């Protein structure tokens, strides 16, 4: 498929909300997926995979905690949307510190949040997650190694320099199957049509 980044962002927001996240986190997820797509990474697939894992989970089970120096979920794998938002919220409080992360699904979804941290700090950040690394200056990213769907641990540090960043692109090309998954989640935000709602509410 060939879709606009606006379509990606709009669908990602609805899908994240449809999977039970609060609107605020859905907005962050949408911007994150758009950022990945604009940097040539398939953010749609990462989001679809994440939403499948956390669909229907209680909010507190999605939210990360810092335990023994590791950011992690209360049980199981951490959600990269909630964790990314938590790391970014602390950007101004943790400048220069290394952040370590416990088991996490689709760690690539943390990268857009780390890019924002790079903008806050005004310097590049490096992200290590198992098989791959990403360096970002906030606008561009450079990926090293094959992006994996899971990492047992990950690390974010204020370090690195972009050598051959990904080119920015203005379109996304998600798999139709992934797009369908996101649409199915988004669908949960739509109220079933009734004759009354047609009559009363339609514009």
């Amino acid at each position, binding site marked *: 498929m*060939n*879709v*606009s*980044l*606006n*379509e990606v962002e709009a669908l990602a927001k609805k899908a994240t909300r449809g999977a039970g*996240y*609060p*609107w*605020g*986190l859905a*907005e*962050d997820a949408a*911007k994150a997926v758009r950022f990945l797509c604009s940097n040539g990474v398939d953010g749609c697939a990462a989001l679809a995979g994440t939403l499948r894992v956390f669909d229907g989970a209680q*909010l507190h089970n*999605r*939210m*990360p905690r810092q335990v023994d120096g590791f950011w992690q979920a209360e049980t199981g794998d951490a959600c990269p949307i*909630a964790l990314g*938002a*938590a790391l*970014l*919220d*602390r*950007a*101004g*409080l943790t400048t220069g510190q290394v952040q370590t992360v416990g088991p996490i699904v689709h760690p690539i979804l943390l990268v857009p949040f780390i890019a*924002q941290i790079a*903008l*806050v700090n005004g310097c590049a950040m490096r992200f290590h997650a198992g098989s791959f690394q990403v360096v970002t200056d906030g606008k561009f990213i450079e990926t090293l190694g094959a992006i994996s769907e899971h990492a047992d641990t990950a690390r974010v540090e204020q370090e690195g320099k972009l050598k051959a960043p990904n080119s920015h692109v*203005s*379109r996304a090309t998600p798999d139709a199957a992934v797009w369908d998954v996101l649409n199915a989640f988004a*669908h949960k*935000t*739509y*109220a*079933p*049509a*009734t004759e*009354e*709602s*047609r009559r*009363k*509410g*339609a*514009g």
Partner: protein
Amino acid sequence: MNAPFTNNRWRPPETVMRLKRLGSLHQCRLSFMRVLTRRMASEKWQFSRAVFDVDTRGVGHAVYTATGPERSYSLVAFAHDLPPEQRSDRVIAEAWDATFALFDGVPTQADVDRLSQNVPLQEAGRVSERELTLSRANRSVRLWTHVVDALASGRQPDIAQIDDVGYLMRTTAVYGSGKFGAADRDVIADRPEMHGPFQAEMLTVYFIRTFVRDLVQHMAQNQGGDAAVALDPAIARRLGIGNSTGLGMAPYLVNHPVLFNNWIAAREEAIARVRAIQRASAVEISVFEKLLNRAELSITRWRSAHVAQLQKLADLRTDLQALRTYLADNALTSDYPWDRLHVWAESALNEEGQEFLASLMLEPYGELIDGLAHCMSDTNADAFRIDGAMSVREVRALLEASFGWARDMDWSARKNIARAWYTSEEKLEPRLGERFEEPIAEYEQPLAPARDAALAMRALEGWSDTVPIAEFLLEHAEHRHTIRRAQMHRVAPYGEIHDNTIGADVLPIDMLRAKLSFFGATHFDPRSDRWVRICMYAGAPYPEDLTPENADLWVYPETAS
């Protein structure tokens, strides 16, 4: 000439951002249609009609191209033979009299072929990154038939009927910004001619008006043959393009607080600059007085059958009389004449009259304020990022700044939360429903910032002032959306509507009018509390007649004198 920013004289958000006032806004020099026509004229854009291939039934296509200093843009128009029973302005319609795409550049035959397979389907089709907008229009059957019949039989159409309707076709949607596969805003935002808000959409509608004029002439020619006459250019010029706008546009203002702020702030800055002028020259006073006469004529042609709008029109006419009396008693040759006038209006006129006057007194001062049009886009991507280091105390103050009035409202009372905004499964469009009568609450969209701010303020009770808001957000992710908006207040003091958007008495048409006034629309005609018809480009020169002399004030009809 650059005046210093005078933001200490901006009217406060708690005055400006009330729904009743937003629902009384009028077009002004900063309106997007006028910004576009001024630019096209000053840059001497060239216009051409490369294709007009429409058959005797009115089916076919046409291509119109506008070329500016660096780039071309083309309207690809498709005309259809629509059975009357399928003609609907509702967003749930599936067929239209005409459909359009604005192409980025000059389309090849292959582009036109591709678009012919998709544009007529609208939401059910796909366009590409080469397209900037997608839109459609329906005929005003009454006026269309009258004009075709008149011209075909060798007569000009009746002016009274022209003025009564105002347009031959009305658009029912103009989609841009990446919708249905079109190019994202980012693709064009750095181009000078597209930097201002909605310039691609405004160009689309400007071209549609030209196409509609050409199409009605074509149909009259087919019907009348040798007996047919050409539409009098003076009559053609009176015709605008109608627009039928429903609820989809109302959430836009809530969903784009920084952008909306920039529109309001630019106008407030313009008003403040004019109020700060110590002496008005004779020429400036003359411009104001002449345009007041022309604006009054426009208001006499403003029709509506909606009870709320009738009251507003009555208020406006009363205000105009009061203004005439004031001007007879108070010469504009005194010092600070505009400030005096504005201060007088604040206590003497209704919101309709106040906002009409605020827009009108900007007219003599294009040199002073037209540059503000460059400040009306949202280029502040960083405003989205939450500052988690901000203290709870600061966040409380920001919430209070926009929503202090909402804190102590009873947000469990039915009348205060009677409505809910939701998206329908059927057409994926925003709707406003009755929370206690329909099963919609669990699908509610975040379009009630006042209620949500009140809930966040309550949740923040008990949190220490000095704690970073990041700590609160880890415990209360459900308020993340609201905290983000609160922080946007720092760069967008006019970003929030200071009224309840889900109360039993909310009028979505107020939000529609606020947005449409910035487009430059006139003659708002609400058809219910949630959809409105307007007219765009009435009085504007057609592309072949556009000059710097007529590119701006066309919105005010010429008076006989």
